[in-house]
């Protein structure tokens, strides 16, 4: 039998995070400070929620390209409910979640029941979401209430408390733990892995794979809704026809975290580390005076490195125990 040997490759992603943070603390201008730490956290809320959702999808062997525009479309409609229809703030936020969840459900139905390739189905909803958000708002920027205004409580609730504490990180952590439990401790999570590992075997084992798979996409949609709420809380203004490209940040976070695009494996811990690697990189490069394009460039580099690492890991992992 096997002795449980600790797999050193599992430590690589966290190590990269620590090394990056250390590197910028030494070379960056004032990087090792609460200000920068808060910046790092602020920029990672919405990406974090998207990445958590799409981790589930990628584990099933699928992909969701509609993350970014789903988030934006939902946030725009929420903003419209607030500005034009004068709904109470709480209802508006609920609407954001509902809209995104419905888009996720649509993805799920197309992938699981209509048999569309996930890439195509979610590419479709990506464009539809972007278009719809712009049409509904008549291409007007939607503004959420700011600090101190009547409904500004929601920023204090989700983003920063009146004392300046970054409360968003508590929400992200709480949601992360819930997602962790769902993925590892419930039937939903188990079947997510089972479908990604061998969907046909799962079906022959008596699992109704279609509703579970649709559920995974719906869950991912909900996560985009949550991302929308936090995006609104942090950035206040939602501009129509944006959001395109944000999905790649979410997916990049998952991939850096070691989840394989071919499905069956992956962890949420990896995902959240991946998200923070990107965030640290962004703020760190800023602190050494490089523009945001450098962030894009280096994120690309990190993604490729992470996938190379993943391939190595898969090779090691496939060795048979006698």
């Amino acid at each position: 039998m096997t002795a449980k040997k600790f797999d050193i490759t599992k430590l690589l992603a966290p190590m990269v995070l620590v090394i990056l943070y250390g590197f910028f603390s030494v070379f960056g201008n004032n990087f090792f400070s609460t200000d920068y730490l808060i910046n790092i956290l602020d920029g990672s809320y919405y990406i974090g929620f998207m990445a958590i959702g799409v981790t589930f999808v990628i584990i099933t062997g699928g992909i969701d390209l509609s993350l970014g525009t789903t988030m934006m479309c939902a946030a725009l409609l929420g903003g419209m409910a607030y500005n034009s229809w004068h709904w109470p703030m709480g209802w508006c936020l609920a609407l954001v979640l509902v809209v995104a969840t419905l888009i996720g459900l649509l993805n799920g139905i197309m992938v699981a029941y209509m048999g569309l390739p996930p890439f195509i189905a979610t590419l479709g909803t990506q464009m539809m979401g972007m278009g719809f958000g712009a049409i509904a708002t008549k291409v007007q920027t939607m503004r959420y209430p700011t600090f101190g205004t009547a409904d500004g409580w929601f920023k204090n609730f989700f983003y920063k408390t009146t004392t300046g504490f970054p409360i968003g990180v508590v929400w992200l952590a709480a949601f992360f733990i819930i997602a962790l439990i769902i993925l590892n401790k419930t039937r939903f999570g188990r079947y997510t892995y089972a479908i990604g590992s061998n969907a046909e075997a799962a079906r022959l084992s008596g699992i109704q794979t279609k509703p579970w798979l649709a559920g995974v996409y719906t869950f991912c949609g909900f996560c985009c809704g949550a991302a929308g709420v936090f995006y609104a809380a942090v950035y206040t203004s939602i501009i129509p026809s944006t959001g395109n490209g944000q999905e790649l940040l979410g997916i990049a976070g998952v991939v850096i975290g070691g989840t394989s695009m071919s499905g069956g494996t992956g962890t949420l811990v990896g995902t959240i580390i991946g998200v923070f690697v990107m965030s640290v990189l962004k703020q760190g490069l800023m602190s050494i005076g490089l523009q945001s394009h450098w962030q894009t460039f280096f994120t690309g580099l990190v993604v490729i490195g992470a996938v190379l690492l993943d391939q190595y890991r898969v090779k090691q992992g496939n060795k048979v125990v006698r």
Partner: protein
Amino acid sequence: MSDILLEMKHIQKFFPGVHALDNACLDVRYGEVHALIGENGAGKSTLMKVLNGIYKKDGGEIIYKGEEIELSGPLDAQKRGIGMIHQELNLMPHLTVAENIYIGKEPMFGGVFLDQKKANQAAKELLASMHLDIDPTLPVKKLTVAKQQMIEIAKALNNNSELFVMDEPTSPLTDTEIEELFRFIRQLRAAGRSIIYISHRLEELWRISDRITVMRDGQYVGTVNTADVTRQEIISMMVGRVIYEEPKQCSTVPKDSPVVLEAKNLNAPNVKNVSFELRKGEILGFAGLVGAGRTETMRALFGADVRMSGEVLVKGRKVEIHSPSDAVKNGIGYLSEDRKAFGIATGLSVRDNCVMADLKNYCAGPIMNDKKIDAIATEYISKISIKTPSLRQLVRNLSGGNQQKIVIAKWLIKKCDVLIFDEPTRGIDVGAKSEIYKLMNKLVEDGKSIIMISSEMPELLRMSDRIIVMSEGAITGELDICDATQTSVMTFATMNM
């Protein structure tokens, strides 16, 4: 209560162009190991897929535990206690042993949360009751194939299966693992469960089975008590009426016919120091059991897989083959055993497939010359009598035999002189088989040379001029067709084991 657990009567199944099952019958008693045998394509797997609900039968009845049933799908079959141990194992490689066994019926607590401890504990007990020492928390992909198979059985056992269908369970196993499996099958039988056992390895039947049902060409031939028959009797039941011509008596290839292809000391995974020569106008048969390294040898020679060492000489000249395109440039064409995956593009038309390998010569610059393509495709369609309604017919709509001919046409158009046929008649029905044979004979008459890997003994004996036998990755014997018999080939094929 009768002692019959399952009765399949006069089962019919049609596929486009093929009458796959014609009056297939099978009856299985409680607590017996019932072997189901027949040559490749006899319809065993099809019959089992009907029993598992994967295929709908087109006629006949299935009586299970005394009542007639209609199976709606694999789930239905499973619920009724029919457990399939598939040839290609159906496990989720990334999940653990316990997770695989309890998939679909996970122990829970609080209605929401998985009770992993309980699952592991139960799996451990289940495996212990099977006398298996496997850590239930290990991912399945970390186990050997033999152990994965045991996990499949454990899973079926956990489903309260009463009838186990094992499709070629021993083919990937080593001798000791087979012994282990047999011990376990006997244990199941002693517990009153029934097993349908499909195997190509005849000698196993007398070690494990109680009765044998023989199928041939989709039809029921007969059922016998294993103890009452000899191996020879079973073989004659399997082969039955003579659908194959007599074995070649002697080779007509002159002994001094020039060598067109020579392999020297090829080494690759599962290929050990393989050397051989192929002469002009010759069909060189490669015999051996599944996993003997024949396909690996040819793939290494063809450049499809990495070759670790060794040389290839074409017409006496040493050539560097690092990829299939190198091989094709040197006039070697490979016809894979898996046509659909490697041989043809099913979504393209007959004419496009024909010129696929040689497209460069049918283009003016970057533009395809349609007239020229139509002309050459028409020529070869009539030359090797491919039955297709039109040049633009999609290949996926043709029968297996015609698909195989298109692959042949492709290599002929590319002007390959050496053709490697890997199981040329697999999945092709009897009529089309003899056409492929005719075509192969015509090819060598025209001066081509053929290497043929085959697992069907009559095919080898009928077609080859010489037979090379492999076992465990090495050549164990070479037989001239005049000296080759089933027995002599089998003797070499089981050497080294």
